[in-house]
């Protein structure tokens, strides 16, 4: 049979009052789950925005003046919006010094009715000659360029439900299209679009059902020469071409970021309050424990326990409590984050998701914070316990 150890004595102490132990574990679990949820929410939104803007691969995005919000909604939030500017803007942009490459998209929203037999969705028409955004995705998924009369579905479109709809035909603005495949997930708002080359647009315009007019485009993506500051070039662009707004890659999702900053403040305040309350609870419970077990501590000291032995014994108790509560909190927080993600419009409209690495780091932060708070709350009572005069506490009846 195994001999007793500090760990076995600490565990037996924890089992002594299971309700009290349960309350402490529950409190720590609540705090950690709140923390995990807050961090997961913030990190998933922030990293999704960053990932989306990076995936687009453009240093600057040029949109019609006043359409910046619409463009972000389209590219990041998967919202159906249409905005147009004259094709001639492309040449004006090309002339700006520092522009290395550019391409453009034209966005359309399909409508319910006889002209379209697909669910209302977003249509992206691109120029296959200049494109550096869709082509890499297409190469990976289809292995060849799209032909006239062909379209490919984004990962999150209705057409991709069940994945059995490949090689189906669809009518879009009275034109028959063959859906030839599905793109891999990109994590951008474009996951919810149907893609086709711009040569199809002429026929769509001629159908008369689309708001699009000849010679219009929606957005221009530009790549800058190496070493140039996107903000600087963006300011020049806006100065030279008053009809456009320019969004630098780092500024994509500004609306989200400012909302996120406000949410972060609320999360931070709530987490601080919960941390203070939990620390106080741990302090109160361990103070009670110190009083309850003072005679036992005196006996242990008389049996040869050093101050460090007493500290070790109670620290193990605290660490077990902290770790147990934190592990439950991490699991609950992660589950809550997944469960409630759909309830937040901020998360619903963007392709938010955390990588395994991010989840691991957040879990580690949760474990660390939960355990640290537990130890912090218990340190003062533990310090008092170790300083107790053995004879005085032994004689206390």
């Amino acid at each position, binding site marked *: 049979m195994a*001999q*007793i150890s500090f760990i076995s*004595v600490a565990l037996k102490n924890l089992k002594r009052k299971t309700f009290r132990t349960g309350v402490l574990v529950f409190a720590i679990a609540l705090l950690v789950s709140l923390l995990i949820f807050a961090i997961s929410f913030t990190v998933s939104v922030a990293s999704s925005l960053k990932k989306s803007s990076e995936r687009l691969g453009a240093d600057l995005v040029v949109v019609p003046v006043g359409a910046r919000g619409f463009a972000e909604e389209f590219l990041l939030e998967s919202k159906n919006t249409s905005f147009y500017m004259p094709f001639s803007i492309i040449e004006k942009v090309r002339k700006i010094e520092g522009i290395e490459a550019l391409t453009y998209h034209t966005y359309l929203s399909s409508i319910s009715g006889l002209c379209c037999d697909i669910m209302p969705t977003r249509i992206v028409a691109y120029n296959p000659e200049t494109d550096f955004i869709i082509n890499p995705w297409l190469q990976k998924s289809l292995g060849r360029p799209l032909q006239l009369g062909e379209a490919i579905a984004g990962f999150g479109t209705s057409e991709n439900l069940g994945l059995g709809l490949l090689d189906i035909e669809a009518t879009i603005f009275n034109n028959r299209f063959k859906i030839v495949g599905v793109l891999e997930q990109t994590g951008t708002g474009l996951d919810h679009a149907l893609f086709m080359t711009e040569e199809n647009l002429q026929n769509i315009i001629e159908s008369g059902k689309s708001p699009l007019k000849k010679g219009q485009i929606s957005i221009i993506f530009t790549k800058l020469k190496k070493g140039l500051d996107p903000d600087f070039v963006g300011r020049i662009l806006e100065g030279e071409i008053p009809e456009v707004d320019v969004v630098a890659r780092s500024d994509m999702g500004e609306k989200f970021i400012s909302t996120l900053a406000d949410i972060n403040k609320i999360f931070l305040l709530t987490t601080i309050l919960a941390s203070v309350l939990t620390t106080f609870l741990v302090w109160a419970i361990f103070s009670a424990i110190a009083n309850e077990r003072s005679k036992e501590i005196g006996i242990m000291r008389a*049996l040869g326990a050093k101050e460090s032995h007493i500290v070790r014994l109670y620290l193990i108790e605290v660490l077990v409590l902290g770790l147990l509560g934190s592990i439950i909190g991490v699991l609950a927080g992660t589950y809550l984050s997944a469960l409630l993600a759909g309830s937040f419009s901020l998360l619903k409209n963007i392709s938010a998701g955390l990588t395994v690495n991010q989840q691991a780091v957040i879990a580690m932060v949760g474990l660390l914070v939960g355990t640290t708070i537990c130890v912090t709350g218990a340190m003062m009572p533990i310090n008092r316990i170790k300083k107790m005069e053995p004879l005085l506490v*032994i004689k206390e009846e």
Partner: protein
Amino acid sequence: MFLHIENLTKIYTVDHETLVGVDNISLSIDRGEFLSIVGHSGSGKTTLVSIIGGILKPTAGRVLLEGVDICTLDDSKLSEYRANRIGFMFQFASLLPILTAKENVLLPGIFNPGPKTDKDKIARDLLEMVGIGEKLDSYPSQLSGGQQRRVAIARALLNKPDIILADEPTGDLDEETEAEIMHLLQEINKTQGVTIILITHNLGLAGKAQKQYRMSRGQLADI
């Protein structure tokens, strides 16, 4: 001299009032002696053994164990002294309620890992020796007062101490059990050569020791 107490004094200050717990006591004890100290409550008996046991610092004087003054040891050394050389028995049931009889006996072992010995076997043998070998896995709440004292004796012996300090170990026991515990202590003293200092207010019990002292108002006198 094995244990030499020299001009030992302990003064307490309670609410600005000075109380003399131990008043200039000097005493020499040989290895393997069994001595008893009788006295009324508040006479200073517990204070004296607490100082000898290293759980209380004196105001003045020295306690020399084989020439080493334990009153000058720091907390860590004093804890080692208690763990290695002293076995305590208290005047109340001093077992930890969360531990079984055997675990209670093993408890001093975690504070004094010492050489790699099979402490589990030692604990079993000790419980066997004190007559409750069948109660290894019983919790204190499942043991009688006498059985709990026997566990406390076994626990005091785990680390093979030089001195057992028994502070009224039979205080709340019936006469029969009291006699059994006393007999057990005498056996341990005889067979293992452990020095025993027994504190009691029972003159009959004190008379069974080799030397008897009386304590009154912090002062010690031969009986």
